[in-house]
């Protein structure tokens, strides 16, 4: 009797410690980012930092404007979501509603594998295959336009394509499970009323799974926003306005590429860039929490 009680108690404590560890990690990371990143905002000036367009940290008169970097992250993320989500959603529909058991398991396996591929591999393939293609495209579009700076195919568009592929597994798996969770009687009712299968899918099943699909989209946004390695390899890395054929740098690659040799204020500004990224991610997660809560309320 006593022994049992002790075991119960110890187990409870162990669980609690584990749970606290996660909270502790999040809190300390947040605190650290703010401590390291916030003072620089004061030193450089918030408008200069957030809305300045010139990034020249090692110049004689340094300037630390990260507006283009922020825009590149935002544009890259949303464009990749715009491409990735429709493809992902339709794949999810195929998996949950249409595919026969055998084919479905093959596709599901492929999607899982896609999720398991490390981002550096995406980057490598992007660099070796996608970039040369992009360069061909760039040449055929801009031809002898001397005012365009040729980037050799390492540009925003490459980054968007790589990101779109990378967010697919997240969108597909979350959407598939939410589509599957739609009660079968909704489908039956729709079909019984004379709706075709496609009408049922698009007008009954997808709307019913709306909040789950939204969760997938938000998770995809988080993935795209936080990706560094692959983007670093395909996007060119010069700070420019995020146009399709410009070489760009995002918040993540900004830190990755310059942390190595940065010193003094330059280094501190990189922490501020990290803080900006962190705040973006927190906003995305906040939206995610809201979406999930709403989903629970509806069901």
């Amino acid at each position: 009797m006593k022994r049992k009680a002790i075991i119960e108690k110890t187990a409870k404590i162990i669980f609690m410690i584990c749970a606290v560890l996660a909270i502790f990690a999040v809190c300390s990371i947040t605190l650290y980012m703010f401590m390291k990143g916030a003072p620089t905002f004061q030193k450089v000036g918030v408008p200069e930092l957030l809305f300045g367009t010139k990034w020249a940290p090692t110049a004689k008169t340094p300037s630390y404007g990260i507006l283009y970097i922020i825009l590149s992250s935002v544009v890259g993320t949303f464009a990749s979501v715009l491409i990735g989500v429709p493809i992902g959603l339709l794949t999810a529909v195929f998996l949950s509603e249409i595919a026969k058991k055998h084919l479905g398991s093959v596709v599901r396996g492929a999607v899982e594998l896609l999720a398991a591929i490390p981002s550096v591999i995406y980057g490598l393939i992007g660099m070796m295959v996608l970039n040369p293609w992009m360069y061909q495209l760039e040449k055929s579009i801009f031809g002898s336009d001397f005012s365009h700076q040729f980037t050799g195919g390492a540009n925003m568009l490459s980054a968007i394509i790589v990101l779109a592929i990378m967010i697919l597994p997240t969108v597909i798996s979350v959407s598939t499970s939410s589509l599957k969770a739609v009660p079968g009687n909704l489908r039956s009712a729709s079909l019984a009323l004379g709706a075709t299968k496609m009408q049922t899918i698009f007008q009954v099943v997808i709307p019913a799974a709306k909040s789950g699909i939204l969760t997938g989209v938000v998770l995809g946004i988080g993935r795209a926003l936080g990706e560094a390695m692959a983007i670093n390899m395909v996007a060119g890395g010069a700070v420019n306005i995020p146009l399709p054929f410009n070489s760009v740098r995002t918040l993540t690659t900004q830190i990755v590429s310059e942390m190595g040799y940065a010193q003094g204020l330059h280094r501190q500004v990189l922490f501020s860039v990290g803080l900006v990224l962190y705040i973006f991610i927190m906003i995305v997660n906040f939206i995610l929490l809201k979406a999930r809560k709403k989903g629970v309320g509806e069901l």
Partner: protein
Amino acid sequence: MKKKLLAVLCATGLLTAALTGCGNSEAQTTSTTETAEQTETTVAETQETEDTQATEETAAEDTANLSGTISLAGSTSMEKLCEAMSESFMEKYPGITVTVEYTGSGAGLESLASGSVDIGNASRHLKDEELSGGAVENVVAIDGIAVIEDKENTVTDISAEDLAKIYTGEISNWSELGGKDEAIVVIGREAGSGTRDAFEELLEVADNCAYAQELDSTGAVLAKVASTPGAIGYVSLDVVDDSVIAISIDGTEPTEEKILEGNYLLSRPFVMATNGEISAQNDLVKTWFDFIKSEDGKSVISQVGLIIPE
């Protein structure tokens, strides 16, 4: 229930505070303090003999008895060399602590002139007024930068002026230089890179470069240039391989011999200046320079991708 929540929050807060505290001190720990700890005991042991240790025989043989501190200050570009050199130096002479500050070439020479450091680092030749102030230029290594392009390119010689124009964006097609009708893809390194600093400084295009790609490693530049038609980039001379062409500048090929002759534009000396000749320095500084000239020192220099002078 409320109590429990409070306990959880308290624990989290405490842990958080503890971690961030650690994080701070960690960030401020430099390699010099690390090594200082390492050598602390030996320094203490030999402290008494420090005043009398300036006898020639100790310097000659019994190196373990040498103890004290050598201080260097100056060029940020020399960080890699200084870190590697001091590391292997202190491994051989555990009693000596080498501290290096990276304040910039000019500032380093000023510290030397004011006597606050033993050695002033400069990644350029000394100016006349610096030499007349008593500083002696000791070139310890030479940094060479090669301009590279892809294998298919027909332009293999370029004037410094045209090269500068390529990097500032005034020339954007190889046909303007007598080559194929192929756009120039200007590839460089990220801000803060020593190679980029040196390249822009030597070519006098500092802060004016219009890069199409900024990559964060030498290997990446090499790979990109090799695989992109019409690309141009710059890397340390020692990493150039068969996958790219190293371009001649003003008719001078980027080879070690040409650099040692002093004809190649994109090279610069790494100077460790002393107040007066090396022979007039204290034993510690003499040992430092002896080490640099020894086989061990030479291997450090070539390891960090630099050319050994003479």
